[in-house]
């Protein structure tokens, strides 16, 4: 038979258990809105039974662990999806900038191309008119300026991306070293039998943030430490050791390198996913394509007009052979495309209306060259397209990139929301549920107290004997 003192201990264990459970519930309620917090559950077990007088009877209850609700599969999915979301999110601003620069409005480059050829058409009706000649030079100047402006603005988008990369990298390094530190703390806490639930929550959140920034694959080693790698396999965090990123400016572009131990690796856009992947791909793949397209358009238009003027034997108002209307600077690199840098270098080579050729005979009413140049606008000069159509193709390409990216961003944001909802369903805190648990534990506490009072009365009776 168990002694009354043992019964007192049994009652006390009930009190402690309820109290601990109330504490866990309280902590859940307090963290209902904490980002990345996982609901904790007091794991209540029956304590070791006692055997006395041939009977085995229970000796109360205890909280043997505070468990953390969670599903590592969903965490993995969240990490992967965050990387995709980060890439689309980061690309959306520069892509929208590119679309704005390759304008399809009334003030876009397409309008300037139309106006330039229209000015020649107008000159054809009055070939020696000063106003009409001035108009041609003016429109040629506007066209060149617009090419500069597009080139300049695309370069500014590149600068903006450089700045974004430079401001992202320090945070990323900080997160990586925090993950390494947490790995160490979690291992130490759990080695001595402690619960590292809060630390694990923090680590999961950091891992998701790192993946959103640079794209990472995640694995867990034998000590329960999280290991992160870039998608090319380079280590970001191994156990309690974090690698670190560094940035340097090379030819006006911010380049990223990863230092792991004593070795440094130079990284390119395809080594990353996430924010950095989105930014680098836009800067190193997308923008150069647009610059190349615009350069080629500027170069083709300028050389076509120049060639026509010189080969058809244009004669200016002074009776001299006409020179090029547009000036272009050839690229310094002999291996580069002939049009490389044309949008930046195109300019009007003539500043005097008398030097403009309207015809090929030097007579005052000869407008034959005007007609030939005006006809250029309808020639399929670039890949079977006229200048205007080529510009429309470039603008449509920018639009398509933006709308595709928007679509993917929405889809990945939806997936991320759905995964978060799933994670919350498993690990999130429902205040209603916690209130019910609170009532349950409170009732348990009251019951245990009543039981203790009863045992005390029994002891009192025994003492009076």
């Amino acid at each position, binding site marked *: 038979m168990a002694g009354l003192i043992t019964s007192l201990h049994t009652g006390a264990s009930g009190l402690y258990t309820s109290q601990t459970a109330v504490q866990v519930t309280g902590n859940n309620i307090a963290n209902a809105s904490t980002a990345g917090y996982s609901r904790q559950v007091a794991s209540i077990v029956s304590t070791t039974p006692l055997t006395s007088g041939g009977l085995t009877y229970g000796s109360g209850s205890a909280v043997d662990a505070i468990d953390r609700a969670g599903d590592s599969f969903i965490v993995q999915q969240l990490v992967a999806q965050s990387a995709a979301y980060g890439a689309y999110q980061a690309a959306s601003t520069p892509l929208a900038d590119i*679309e704005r620069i390759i304008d399809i409005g009334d003030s876009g480059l397409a309008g300037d191309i139309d106006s330039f050829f229209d000015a020649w058409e107008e000159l054809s*009706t009055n070939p020696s008119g000063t106003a009409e000649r001035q108009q041609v030079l003016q429109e040629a100047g506007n066209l060149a300026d617009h090419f500069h402006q597009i080139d300049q603005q695309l370069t500014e988008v590149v600068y903006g991306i450089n700045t974004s990369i430079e401001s992202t990298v320090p945070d990323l390094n900080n997160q990586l070293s925090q993950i390494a530190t947490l790995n160490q703390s979690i291992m130490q806490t759990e080695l001595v039998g402690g619960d590292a639930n809060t630390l694990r929550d923090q680590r999961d959140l950091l891992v998701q943030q790192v993946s959103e920034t640079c794209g990472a694959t995640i694995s867990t080693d034998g000590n329960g430490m999280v290991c992160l790698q870039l998608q090319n396999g380079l280590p970001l965090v191994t156990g309690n050791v974090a690698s670190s990123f560094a940035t340097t400016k090379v030819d006006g572009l911010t380049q990223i390198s990863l230092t792991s131990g004593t070795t440094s690796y130079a990284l390119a856009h395809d080594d990353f996913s996430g924010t950095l992947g989105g930014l680098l791909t836009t800067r190193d793949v997308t923008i150069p394509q647009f610059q190349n397209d615009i350069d080629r358009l500027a170069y083709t238009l300028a050389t076509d007009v120049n060639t026509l003027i010189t080969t058809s034997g244009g004669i200016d108002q002074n009776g001299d052979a006409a020179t090029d209307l547009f000036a272009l600077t050839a690229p310094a690199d002999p291996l580069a495309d002939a049009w490389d840098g044309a949008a930046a270098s195109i300019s009007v080579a003539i500043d005097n209306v008398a030097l403009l050729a309207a015809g090929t005979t030097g007579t005052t*009413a000869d407008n034959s060259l005007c*007609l030939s140049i005006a006809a250029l606008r*309808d020639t399929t000069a670039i890949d079977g397209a006229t200048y*205007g159509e080529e510009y429309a193709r470039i603008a449509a390409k920018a639009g398509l990139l933006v709308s595709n990216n928007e679509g993917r961003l929405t889809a990945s944001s939806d997936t991320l929301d759905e995964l978060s909802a799933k994670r919350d*369903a498993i690990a*999130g805190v429902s*205040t*209603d549920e916690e209130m019910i648990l609170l009532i349950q534990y409170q009732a348990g506490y009251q019951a245990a107290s009543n039981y203790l009072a009863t045992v005390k009365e029994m002891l009192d009776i025994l003492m009076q004997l």
Partner: protein
Amino acid sequence: MIITRDATTYNALQSNLSRTSTALNQLYLKASSGVEVSSASDNPAAVGSILGCRSDIVKGERYVENCKHVQDTLSSSEVSMDSIERLLTRAKEIAINGANDSLSEADRATLADEVSQLQQELLDLANAKSGNTYLFAGYNDQTQPFSGSPVTYNGTADHQMIEISPGTTVAKNITGEELFMSPVNLFTTLEDLHTALTSGDSATVSAMLTPLEDAAEQVRGQLSSLGNTSARMDDMISLHENSLLLVKSTLSRHQDADLTEVLSEIAKMETSLQATMQVTARVSSLSLMDYL
């Protein structure tokens, strides 16, 4: 599945609220600007058509301008050419008079004087200007085309071509060469008439009737082709104006917002936004704590 109100429900409501407000904002912009495709991503497939239409409008308006310009220049020429025709008719009357055998020497001399006047008048008409350019000088429109005795042509045989529709050009000028010099030389014809009248031989004067008729025919031929070109310009103008209307409506179809559609879409979205807001308010009032 546990629905955790703080996380699941509010997150879902929050993202729906922001999505609906963004969509609504875009609709407001469309309604106020009237433009459906303001950036390429609104409809990348329509970009080519939109820019193509704008370009066609610039060209179409220019072709209309060019047609009117050709008409204006031709009508300046027409005025002078009408006078030349009248002048030649008068010369023919003089020739008929001069061919009369009963005419005295003095009468013939008077007629010869009138022919001299006509010769001077013809030279003036041949050097007619519109603004500061000579009408019948070909490409050399800043230099007086006819001068000297006998009169020579210093202009060129070039026509100033003007584009009136893609790839089609018409001449806006009649050259002095084709009007005065070739095949019939108007100046020589009048000079011959003058000589015939002065020499006093009625048969010679009478022989001038045919060359004079040929000369008048040459001018009438040019006048008639000028009239044809001018009429063709009228046709071209209405053709271009019709196609401009068509291009403008195509542009509008690609680019402009259908206001009825946008407004009904706005009403729909506003209802949806209100519903989301009401649900949000209601969810926050639902709590077990109210009943404990």
